[in-house]
């Protein structure tokens, strides 16, 4: 299994576009941080922007702000490409049949590909966080953060202020990074399933990203009520409360459970489908 994972990892990372993504994952956080620094702190205009407003206070909050931005698009596209291409990409090049005419179980091959997809998205998320941290600390410094309370128009207190030490910020940054990375589990499982169902990688990638977009749209329709709790993107922002509200939300646990459920259901279907599929590419 280790050899199979190693082979799949080599195939995944040695694509020429891997370098482009690597540059984007490191360069974009630096660019966003530079832009944030150039704009300067304008609390009256930034009110309500949460993490970006707080990021001016400490470089330790910049990676969280960057993760919030990039987990909504670029990382979704990368997750879609990694998972969508896993099987369909090889089928399109015709190489899949040569991988499968060896004494290799299809289930093991798919699991190996899924492991590689998971590792790569974790690496991508960690790269974003580390790049944001380096850029943030360079430009905004290494400080504790003081979050002011929020008062209502009548003068009553809606939320009390709090302090986040550098140690707390770092710990929560690790938790947030892990949560963001794990938040792609369901999407990867669906992408892997789509990838087994077509020989056209663009189709599998499009379907994967499409599911994310549709989930986001539907999640915005509050009339759908509790149904939204089952959408793969519903709890994706639950980690932000670690920084903006100084608490570990129950939504973090709910988010993990939803992702595991998607992994079990779509991963199971992908395995079942791939094992019985006729390889005709």
């Amino acid at each position, binding site marked *: 299994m280790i050899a*199979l994972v190693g*082979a799949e990892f*080599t195939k995944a990372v040695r694509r020429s576009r891997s370098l482009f993504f690597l540059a984007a994952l490191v360069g974009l956080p630096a660019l966003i941080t530079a832009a944030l620094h150039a704009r300067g702190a304008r609390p009256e205009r930034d009110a309500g922007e949460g993490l970006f407003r707080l990021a001016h206070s400490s470089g330790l909050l910049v990676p969280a702000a960057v993760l919030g931005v990039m987990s909504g698009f670029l990382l979704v596209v990368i997750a879609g490409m990694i998972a969508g291409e896993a099987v369909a990409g090889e089928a399109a*090049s015709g190489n899949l049949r*040569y991988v499968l*005419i*060896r004494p*290799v179980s299809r289930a093991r091959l798919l699991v190996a590909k899924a492991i590689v997809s998971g590792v790569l998205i974790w690496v991508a998320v960690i790269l974003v966080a580390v790049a944001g941290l380096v850029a943030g600390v360079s430009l905004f410094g290494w400080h504790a953060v003081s979050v002011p309370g929020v008062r209502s128009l009548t003068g009553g207190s809606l939320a009390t202020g709090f302090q986040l030490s550098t140690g707390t910020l770092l710990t929560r940054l690790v938790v947030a990074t892990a949560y963001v990375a794990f938040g792609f589990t369901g999407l990867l499982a669906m992408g892997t399933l789509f990838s087994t169902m077509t020989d056209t990688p663009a189709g599998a990638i499009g379907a994967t990203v499409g599911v994310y977009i549709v989930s986001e749209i539907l999640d915005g329709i509050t009339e759908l009520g509790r149904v939204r709790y089952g959408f793969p993107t519903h709890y994706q922002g639950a980690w932000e409360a670690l920084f903006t509200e100084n608490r570990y939300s129950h939504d973090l646990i709910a988010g993990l459970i939803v992702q595991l459920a998607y992994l079990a259901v779509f991963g199971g279907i992908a395995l079942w489908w791939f094992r019985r599929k006729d*390889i005709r590419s």
Partner: protein
Amino acid sequence: MIVEGQIHGGLADGLGMALMEVIAFDEDGNCLGGSFMDYLMATVVRAERPTSARPGEAALVLADGTVVGFVGGECAEASVTAQALGWLGAPGALVVSVDAVVAVTGLSKTFGDVVAVDDLSFAVEPGQVCGLLGPNGAGKTTVMRILVGLEHPTGGESHLFGTRVSPGCRELSRVGAMIEQAAFVPYLSGMANLRLWWEANGSRLRDADLDGALAVAGLGDAVHRKVRTYSQGMKQRLGFARLLLARPELLILDEPTNGLDPGEIREIRELIRRLTESGSTVLLSSHHLTEVEQTCSHVVVMNRGRLAASGTVRDLMGSSGRVYVEVDDRARARAVLEGMAGVGRVVADGDGLGVELHQGRRSDLVTALVGAGVRVETVTGAQRLEDAFLDLLESGTERPRVVG
């Protein structure tokens, strides 16, 4: 020696082989399908082994008294049949061979309403170079894909080295296959592709026949270039290198020269010839009948998913009832042959004459020509496999023709 017992238990043990892994031929050498095997397994009551029997040989006695020859060993089908009939003394006895490298019994595959393969049975014995022929859409590629576990049959079974094929089964380690065109990870070098493919299931590259494979491919330094820069011929050669890494006992080659230019076709044909000379068993599908004629010892002809004919190339060419005669005086020879009884149409063909023999023998034909003062240079069976092949497809017989 008498072995009695249940077919799935003691009897199979007594014979030292699993009856699920056999393929059967009738007294004419026709390959029998899965329905016969079901019948056989349901009705065998005992197995007998005469003292003269060799390992793997036995007589199976069915419930209705029918005696079935059960023969292993490295015997050619025809000699097996004759031998079994001889020592069984049972007219109409059936012969079962367990040693086929490839055994396909009652194989069917449908895609929706389309029947790609229909109750196909054939076997490839050790050392044979077997051509799988048929027009486009005959089902050849589907059969090959089923044989290497890429597709699941709708009915029937396929076996490699006596083991039923399933996706990723262990016997695939003994098989080198090229299904349609060779394909690789395009952004990796040829060498990286070989290494990755070989090591993916935990094998060590030092255990592979890398030097031999690279020598066969003959790519030189180009093996370190990215595959996307290769011509189709280079990819095909690298494909051969890949399948030879494991020193396979069986090669399954599906249209290996498709899409190549004449020079590349020649190179690949030469490569196949060298491989077959090394004793590998080969199942080869090709549209190039000249290639099959030059390369293969046996052929299996498919038409619309069914078996149209099987046997040796020589006999298939001969079975068309045509002979090709090369003489020094074609006009005189033609006049002589057209006047002979048992001879049909005589047509000019290249440097010689194509002669349809209805009843007469080749020796009669030669005697008549020599008697008329015509020098006979060559007399062969049907002059080209292509003619026999086309005759076979045009005749569209329901029953498969088994020759040889």
